[in-house]
Structures are given as structure tokens and as C-alpha cells.
């Protein structure tokens, strides 16, 4: 293979790989954003916090936040599955059964109590994070997405 051909192949591969970068990532659901962001922070926290022990504790907290996001996702999925069971079957489809707005809403988001519990747990973890990290460390980690 000639040098020219080799460089053309290499350039094509590099362009294809590099071209995958998007300028503006699409908006994500806050929970998905929170999970992705906490996971990303957990991966690099040790590069920001020089003390191994504090870094490990902060990493555990970020992983707990990420897990919270996954739990919330699963709660939403369960909520949806419950909703579908109410409307499953040909009879339900044919009769266009009417449900209350509250029931409909419960299908769109998990029960209020579950949302509140998730939120409270998140706040608790983030407040604990402040006892582990310094102001500067928290600011630097805030730039990690």
C-alpha cells in the first residue's frame, strides 16, 4: 500500500472517529443527568482530593448518589408497569376505561412519597459531601460531568 493511500485510510478513520463529537448534547432527564454526573465525579474524585481516605469517602458518596438515580429509574419503571396492568387486555382497550387524573399522574411519575424519599436521601448525601470536601474541591468537582 502506498504512503498516500495509507495516509488517506488513516485520515478517514480519524475523521470518522473524531466526527462522533456532538456540539450540543441533547437535554436529559434530571435523574439521568444526576446519575451520569455522579458516576463521572466518582471516577475522578481522587485526582482532585489529594488525601486517599477523604477521596474514597467522597467516591462512595457519589456512587451512592448514582445508585439513587438507578433506584429512582426502577421505581418509575415499576410505576409504569403497574399502570399498564390496569389497562392491559383487549377488554380494557375496547372499553376505553376512564381513570382519574390522580391515577394517570401516578403513571407518569412515581408516587409522591417515593419521589420525596429519593430527594431527601439525595440532600442528605450532598450535605454529607460538604463535610468531606473543601469548598475548592467541591467547585472543581462541579465542573466534572
Amino acid at each position, binding site marked *: 500500500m502506498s*504512503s498516500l493511500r*495509507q495516509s488517506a485510510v*488513516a485520515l478517514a*478513520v*480519524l475523521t470518522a*472517529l*473524531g466526527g*462522533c*463529537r*456532538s456540539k450540543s448534547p441533547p*437535554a*436529559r*432527564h*434530571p435523574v*439521568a*443527568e*444526576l446519575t*451520569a454526573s455522579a*458516576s*463521572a465525579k*466518582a*471516577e*475522578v474524585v*481522587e*485526582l*482532585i482530593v*489529594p488525601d*486517599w481516605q477523604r*477521596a474514597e469517602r467522597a467516591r462512595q458518596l457519589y456512587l451512592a448518589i*448514582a445508585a439513587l438515580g*438507578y433506584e429512582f*429509574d*426502577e421505581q*418509575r*419503571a*415499576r410505576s*409504569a*408497569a403497574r399502570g*399498564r396492568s*390496569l*389497562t392491559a387486555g383487549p377488554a*380494557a*382497550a375496547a372499553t*376505553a*376505561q376512564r*381513570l382519574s*387524573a390522580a391515577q*394517570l*399522574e401516578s*403513571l*407518569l411519575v412515581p408516587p409522591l412519597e417515593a419521589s*420525596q424519599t429519593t*430527594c431527601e436521601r*439525595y*440532600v442528605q448525601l*450532598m*450535605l454529607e459531601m*460538604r463535610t468531606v470536601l473543601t*469548598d475548592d474541591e467541591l*467547585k472543581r468537582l462541579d465542573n466534572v460531568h
Partner: protein
Amino acid sequence: MLWFALGTAIMMLTGEFYDDRAIVKLFAALRETIAATVKDMPHRAQALHAVEGFERAFETHRRDLAEFGACVERADRKYRATQADYAACSEQARAKRVVLRQALDQVEREYEAALSPAEHALVTSSLTEKPQARILDAQLNLDTARKRATRRSRGIEGVATQRHITVPRNVVSIVYGPLAPSTFGQRFPSNIVDAGTSNAHHEGGADGTAYTEEWFTRPGIRFGLFDNFEAGVLIPIKLAPDVALAPTLVALTYQLRLRAVDLGFRFSFQTPGDVGWALAPGALLKLRSQRLALHTGVLAPMEVGTLREKRSPTLGLNAPVRVIWNLVPVLYVMGESGLAYDNLDVSDGLTIPLGFGAGYTWLLGSRLLEFTGSFAWDHWLVPGKPSGASTFQYGSYRVAFGASFYFQAL
């Protein structure tokens, strides 16, 4: 009932980039279905109007969620934030949820009133047959949510000893320095490939006076195509004694992730050069811990000629071992050795290499820049050569240096 299926499926979605497209397609499919199945014009118009209302409610809900997320982010950024800062966000969200309930109630009534039970059933059955309706499958969504929890993080990996063999999905690494995992063990019968700029000093002759100097620069890229699969390319350019483009290296790596162990399978090849195609399939193993990592593997490099220029294949065997130690999270040192047969046809072809290296990792926001350098005797110890006596070869060495840059593509 269709309305619930739509609502539950849509709100279930995580909002990742592909979800929005799926929702747009689903709404388009619903409108098409209504247009095709509801023959009564006033009924059709009213049903389509209700769908628009639902789309608006969905958009508002997503906007409200984004505002809630932004509010929480503001509190997260404030070091002295208290419970009250977060509670303020929750209060807003709660108020908007009441509005959402009312909006949904209204559009649902409108939709129910628009269609007769028969039309309703017809729209539902027609839509659920379409591929766009796949996202309505509640069980599928539940399974997806469960799988998501076990998925590999797509963040950039920080501390060198804790990194996996492959980069995470959507992570790009511009490789222009030695010690990248994709070049680990890339020792072919005729050449040794590492990224970055390198100087190879080869000493020969009985008195050690005859020598050659070669300079190379090798930029490349690694990209996480899937959670555990990466593709990489390296473009070697020979700078001295003459300037020339050397064969391009392509490496495809798949890994199995266990708790602190990665098992990798790599297939790499070089585009045809003086010796034709060069291939290097192999298996890799990496043991990871907080401060120490062991990277090893067995590779079978070979040079096989080309279809036009046939030659008898040269087969080698390479078992590199690399130990990485993070002195502090941002600084690591590395030692490397192993066993290498560059040509299995040569009876005394065993070589033991020895190398050292170091890297400094610099986090720049969400991106990572890593400076690396290495020094290696690629033929440090040649057992049994010549005539039964082992020899150390300190005169031939390779020095490489450079930097690699990591970032998320999406």
C-alpha cells in the same frame, strides 16, 4: 388503554439522547394512525387536538423537570447550602405537579370524548403493531432500567491504576504519548510500536561502535464504541534518518469486566509495509486496585506478507508484564518486562525486555491530559546468546515521551 400506555412509556424514558427521537417518532406514528383509522372528520380533528395537548403537557413536564434539576444544581454548587435550599426546589416541583395533573386530566377527557369505543380500540391496536410503539412495552422499560444499573460509567477514568483496559463508551482518547493500554504489548517481529515521539538507539557490531538512530512520532486515537469495546488507530511517522509514513496500526479490544480484574481480547494489525500485513491477536489481563495495577497478556504477533507479495509468515510470541504504581493519585511510575520471541523459527530468539516509565495526570474540568514518558531496553537480556552465554544489551534502547488527552464525545 392507549392513553395510559403513552403516558407511562414516555414519562418512563430517561431522557437520554435517543429517547427524544423515539418520542417524536411515537407521536408521529400516533397521528398517522389516527388519521388512517378514524374516518369521522370531527372525531379525527378532536383526537389530533388532544394528542397535541398531550405533547404540550409532556414538553411542559420536561421543562419543569429541567428547572427542578437546575435548581438542585444551583444548591449543589453552593458550599454553604442547607436543607432549606433543596427544600425550595422541591416546593416548586410539587406545585408544578398539581398543574401537570390538571393538564393531563383535561387532555385525557378530550381524547376520550373524541373517539367512540370502536375507534379507540382500532387506534390502539393499529399503533401497537408499529415498531415505533416498542417503547410502550412496560416490561421492556423495567428491564432497561435494571440493566442501566449495571452499565459501565461513561465518565473519564481518573487514577491510572484503576482504569480498565478499554475506554468507556463515547470516551475519546487522543493518544500521543507512550504507555497507553492500546499499545501495550504491540511488539511485532520487525518493529515495536508505542505512541508518542520516540528515539530508538540500536547498537551493533562486536565493539558496539556501529549504531543507528531512529526517530518516530506516532499520534493516534482510541474510542469507546461500546461499554466494553474500543477501537484505536495509530499513525506512525518516521522522522529520522529519513521521513516516511510507516504502517498504520489498528487495534480492536473487547474486555470482560470483573470486580477488580479485566480480561481483554485484542486483535490488532498493521497495514502492509515492507513485510506485508502484520497481525497481533492476543489476550490481556489487568488486575486493578486503588494504587497498584498489574497488566499482562499473551500475544501472537505475525507478519504474513500480502496477496501480491507472498512470503513465509514470521511468527512471534510476546508475554509482556507491566506494573503501575500510583505514588499519589496524579503521579504514577511503571516498570515493564516479560518474555518475547520475535521469531519462533530462530532457536535462540528469546528476549527479556526491561522498561520504566512515569505519567502525570492533569484533570481539566471534565477532560484529562496525561503526560507520559518511558525508557526501555527492548532486548535487555538475551539468554543463551551468543554460544550459550546470556548477554545484557544496554547499548540499544528506546526513549518515548508525549501526552494523551481524554474527553467525552457526547
